[in-house]
């Protein structure tokens, strides 16, 4: 049996980063403003967490112009998706392990 520690990821576990990864896992690609509105966070907070995830190689950014303004589109990288799913599996293992204990 895989130990929960194996997939647990400190970078992803921070609540806002976990929500960002969860949102990105559900889509192919999403615009910065759309994910900001959906998650209800400020642009600076979102930008900070996206930078952390990008530096870890979990999120990639693409710039595109719409209505003369530059928009940023975000997507999970292959590594990011794998890390997020391993992290979810680790969380589920923790929950179910403790349930088994009780």
């Amino acid at each position: 049996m895989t130990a929960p520690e194996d997939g647990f990821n400190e970078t992803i576990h921070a609540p806002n980063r976990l929500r960002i990864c969860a949102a990105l896992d559900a889509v192919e690609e999403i615009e910065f403003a759309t994910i900001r509105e959906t998650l209800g966070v400020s642009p600076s907070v979102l930008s900070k967490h996206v930078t952390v995830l990008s530096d870890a190689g979990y999120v990639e950014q693409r710039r595109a112009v719409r209505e003369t303004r530059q928009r940023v589109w975000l997507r999970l990288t292959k590594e990011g998706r794998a890390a997020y799913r391993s992290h979810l599996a680790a969380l589920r293992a923790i929950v179910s392990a403790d349930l088994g204990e009780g």
Partner: protein
Amino acid sequence: MATDENSRPSDPSMPSRESAAQALALAEQAQAAVGAISPGRWYQPTLAAFLVGIFLTNLLPDPFDITAVGVLFVGMMTFVVLQVRKMGVMHRATPKTGRQMAVGAILGITVYVTALVVEHQADMPWVWVPAALLVGGGILGLERHSRTKGIPA
């Protein structure tokens, strides 16, 4: 060191069960919120109208039919791209959406080929009208079906 498989994780940096459950709930909420972003109620009817138009172009004389098909096809593709940009999200093609797209494509191609054969064999050009309505209705039916079984908010 704990050896019991059911014991709490030995690493102090690992979250407790409650914390892990809260994190899972947060992730599910975020996924549901993003999954609920849809292109708006006029997206599918407009798409269906474009397809109906493409079918009905077969009633036009040469060379207007091929011109109209080209214009409508380009219009439809432009509409789809603009909608995705406006919505700000490109959803993932899940196996379920893949199946729906396959069913839609098979339905459209089958109806198109059948209407083409009927028109040429039986000289019944009006067959394009029921064919167009069938495809347009099919698209709307698939859309209503997917909305009814949509992602819980």
